[in-house]
């Protein structure tokens, strides 16, 4: 136990003792590796509403499931105004199409052509969509919308269903299209006189 006690204990000590604890903490430089004893312990139940991230392996996916058909119904009421029919031609990001275009002069980046993980789709829809009412969809609805978006990209059949087991198994077409930063790929030169002009 560090010399700086946790907050509940500090609270019990009263004002005078608090001063002495704080000064003890103050004298313990943080470099020493000693915690200062600030902050409040928090458990999983308290954190549940915030702890909504899904990792690339699907850890964090909630119970529930959703079908392509149910997702289409949700999409056509909650998503279509911005993303357009079938995930195209909306004012917001295009969601479908573009597969095979990435190496061309007019690449089209969509969920189907570009996103490496299907888990990202669930995570993003759950935390940030619909734009006018984020975090309003129930898990079944998020599974359903995710299923529909994968369907319009040819990645799930019309009678498809998604749940915590099947979603991470979807193999996205651009899964291996990313490489970790390998710069410097461009090296400038410092010529001062009579250089080749350019920009």
């Amino acid at each position, binding site marked *: 136990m560090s010399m700086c006690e946790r907050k509940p204990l500090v609270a019990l000590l009263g004002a005078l003792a608090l001063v002495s604890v704080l000064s003890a903490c103050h004298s313990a430089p*943080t470099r020493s*590796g000693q*915690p*200062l004893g*600030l*902050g*409040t*312990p*928090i*458990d999983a139940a*308290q*954190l549940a509403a*915030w*702890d909504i*991230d*899904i*990792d*690339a392996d699907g850890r964090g996916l909630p119970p529930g499931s959703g079908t392509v058909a149910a997702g289409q119904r949700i999409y056509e009421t909650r998503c279509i105004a911005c993303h357009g029919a079938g995930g195209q031609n909306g*004012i*917001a*990001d295009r969601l479908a199409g573009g597969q095979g275009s*990435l*190496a061309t*002069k007019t*690449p089209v980046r969509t*969920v189907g052509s*570009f*996103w*490496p*993980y299907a*888990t*990202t789709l669930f*995570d*993003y829809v759950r*935390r*940030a969509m619909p*734009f006018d009412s*984020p*975090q309003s969809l129930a898990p079944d609805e998020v599974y359903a919308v995710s299923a529909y978006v994968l369907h319009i990209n040819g990645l799930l059949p019309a009678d498809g269903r998604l749940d915590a087991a099947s979603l991470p198994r979807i193999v996205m077409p651009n899964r291996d*299209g*990313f*490489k*970790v*930063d390998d*710069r*410097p*790929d*461009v*090296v*400038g*030169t*410092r*010529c*001062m*006189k*009579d*250089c080749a*002009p*350019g*920009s």
Partner: protein
Amino acid sequence: MPPYLPPPGLDAGADLIADKNAKPPGRRRFLQGGAALAGGAAAATLAGPARAAGEALPVPAWTRSQGRPVANPYGQPSGFEGRVIRRVREGAQPPFPTAASSLTPLADIFGTITPNGLVFERHHAGIPDIDPEQHRLVIHGLVERPLSFSLNDLLRFPAVSRVHFLECAGNSGSEWRPARKLTVQSLHGLLSCCEWTGVSLGTLLQEVGVAPEAKWLLAEGADAAAMTRSVPLDKALDDALIVYAQNGEMLRPEQGYPLRLLLPGWEGNISVKWLRRLKLGTAPWQSRQETSKYTDLLPDGTSRQFSFVLDVKSVITGPSGGQTLKSRGRQQITGLAWSGHGRIRRVDVSIDGGRNWEEAVLQTPVLDRALTRFSLPWLWDGGPAVLQSRAVDSHGNVQPTRSQLIAARGTESAYHYNGIQSWQVLPSGEVHNVHV
């Protein structure tokens, strides 16, 4: 056109001492010309003072009566400075005003610190109005002691203040495309520099105790995007700050009030605003903001990911796009340079489109991963000129040309543009963005 009167001892045709503060003294010279500038003949064309000779200075009204009283609750710029504001990019009409950006007016600010009201904005779901009493920062996941910190808790940790630039990875992104005649604000204004105050993230991680298997952490905002980015633990332990203040006052709401992450030298997006949660894990989460966005698509169809560091870069802010030089003769070329790798070591300036270069003067102190102001006097002879700046950082990285960038990356990578900027000066004095 107001004529130009050379100061005593200065001769437009000679090598001139431009800056008495430059080191070593006397080494600085004016960059000259555009077209050929020949001694006496050129000096003769640069004639006359800016103020009409013989005009007596009046005693104006503001010297003859009392000004406004004290106790203006929060000071504002002079009413004459109303044009110095953030703007969305010229011609841009963001379909979602809460998922948009505004740009810093780089041509109209001075020194190296960006005033808080002019720091660029990029939001994905608007600016939340967060009650600091209710806000919490939770650190959990692969830690020994998951903890929740109130703002008051964080204010009790040792405070750290550091000056760092902040640049959006998408800054200057329109330069991947054919040149548009935009201002430096529109082209490069997703760039600011502040003194940031907060707690070292390493201190907080010590407080929770990092598990040995932890390698990454997820940073999450409390805005309506609940934006997330994965951060390598090494960076978090190295120099990351949990920031609550900028330039001496609490963060502005649009900068993450009451808490934001700040990762010095890294693309702005990862310095998550309105920070509410840090979760430690073993691998990156592959969030939308690090897969669908902020990845660099290359000509072969592959994409570079986790390209965090912002490379060495500079831009001349004056003269710059949209400005008009009012007279020939002495001009002050000035601009900003920065590098996510370290300090700026030198900045070179060319007035002939990159054929010949002269080293500019750097304002001191030059700080690590902070904006650095450079300047160089220039005698403009009224002919056409193309102004460029080229920065070199403390790791020896040299800012590349646009052509070099495009040769390596094509034109579709969207982010991390750091090519040399070219400003064309026309005989009319008008200044435009060009690619030469």
